[in-house]
């Protein structure tokens, strides 16, 4: 099994990638890791006439801290993100999500920019990005822009990226002191997309009051979901069992799970609350 015929262009800069993608329009697809795109092309579910390879673009593989933000370049491989000291130290919730993405081979090749742009609702990165209030850096024919996580995901496999626009990186705010986070995932088999995934990132005061909280969910809708009402409800509480139960009810209201080959909508709904609560506990245990 192999893909349909296509023309192949190497982009040696972001500008060149944008120019090629703009020139060939809907017939063109950018490729970075290719760990989803190549199988889809082999199955002939996606048949681009032009492939624009982003891999030769220099300078998009940075993991760095600027001011209060950890920035990852679009061409950072998952394996690099997984072992990035900055993420381990400040955002273990993101490390959890990366570790659960695909398998070793996929993580060696797949990229941060690629997985964000793919926007599979069962992917792990989306939930983590939403929980930590991350932003997506994009560049296209009209220049650069930075999009808030919740505004980036529009519909099933559909993002706010415009024609000729690519993801060049993500911005993840460095949490305050006394913060912790965790991502937990229910999967049918190792490395699969999530039946349900829950990411929680929180900051607590010295008296145990929840000062900040972010909740991101995967596998329970057509897009990764940010449970904003549950976040609002938990802020300022002591995270008692009653508070968490009320938040779980709001999480239940925020999700729109679908039935597919991996699980029924009912099962996903039942598990979403369970995984949300477990992720919250795991996040609390990591507060430091």
């Amino acid at each position, binding site marked *: 099994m*192999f893909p349909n015929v296509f023309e192949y262009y190497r982009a040696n800069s972001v500008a060149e990638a944008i120019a090629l993608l703009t020139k060939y329009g809907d017939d063109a697809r950018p490729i970075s890791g290719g760990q989803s795109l190549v199988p889809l092309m082999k199955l002939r579910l996606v048949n681009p006439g032009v492939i624009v390879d982003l891999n030769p673009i220099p300078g998009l593989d940075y993991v760095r801290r600027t001011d209060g933000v950890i920035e990852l370049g679009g061409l950072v491989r998952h394996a690099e993100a997984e072992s990035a000291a900055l993420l381990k130290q400040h955002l273990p919730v993101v490390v959890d999500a990366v570790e659960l993405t695909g398998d070793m081979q996929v993580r060696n090749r797949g990229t941060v920019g690629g997985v964000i742009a793919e926007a599979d609702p069962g992917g792990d990165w989306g939930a983590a990005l939403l929980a930590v209030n991350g932003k997506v850096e994009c560049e296209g024919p009209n220049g650069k822009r930075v999009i808030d996580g919740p505004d980036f995901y529009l519909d099933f496999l559909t993002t706010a990226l415009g024609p000729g626009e690519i993801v060049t990186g993500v911005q993840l705010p460095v949490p305050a002191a006394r913060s912790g986070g965790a991502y937990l995932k229910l999967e049918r088999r190792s490395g699969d997309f999530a039946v349900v995934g829950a990411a929680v990132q929180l900051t607590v005061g010295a008296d145990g009051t929840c000062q900040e909280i972010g909740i991101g969910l995967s596998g329970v809708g057509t897009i990764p979901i940010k449970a904003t009402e549950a976040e609002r409800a938990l802020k300022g509480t002591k995270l008692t069992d009653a508070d968490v139960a009320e938040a779980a009810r709001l999480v239940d209201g925020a999700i729109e799970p679908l039935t597919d080959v991996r699980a029924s909508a009912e099962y996903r709904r039942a598990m979403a609350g369970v995984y949300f609560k477990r992720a919250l506990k795991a996040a609390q245990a990591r507060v430091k």
Partner: protein
Amino acid sequence: MVEIKLKVNGEERTADVEPRMLLVHLLRDVLRLTGPHVGCVVGRCGACTVLWNGKPVKSCMALAIQTDGTEVVTVEGLAKDGELSPLQEAFWEHDAAECGYCTPGMLMAATGLLMQNPTPTEAEIKRAISGNLCRCTGYVNIVQAVRSAAMVMSEK
């Protein structure tokens, strides 16, 4: 067709490829290295795993044209001068192959693991080969072989 140059198992090779040619087909059909196996065809079974610039990847999910100017190692590149690598030796000793179809992929995934982490725990080994399916379900011996190879290699 585009001419590409790459290093395969230490040797400089050139090949004419169509952009849609997958790396696994370049290796098997053009360069006649049939160690990387085609199993599931959609990137789940890991039987086609090779080292690409020193890291295990599935050669059915890379375009051959992308390997221009890079280095690829297949299972054929593990033995040196007829001597099995310590990992291959350990697979032999632990009967870590049943039908053998997954074996090249297992060997390349585990080789990549040991290059990065010479003393992996059992959990780390299992995690590293989680992208490689053995439908004979011979995982126990495979994990033992990787552990044993790690020990042998770290004693050297």
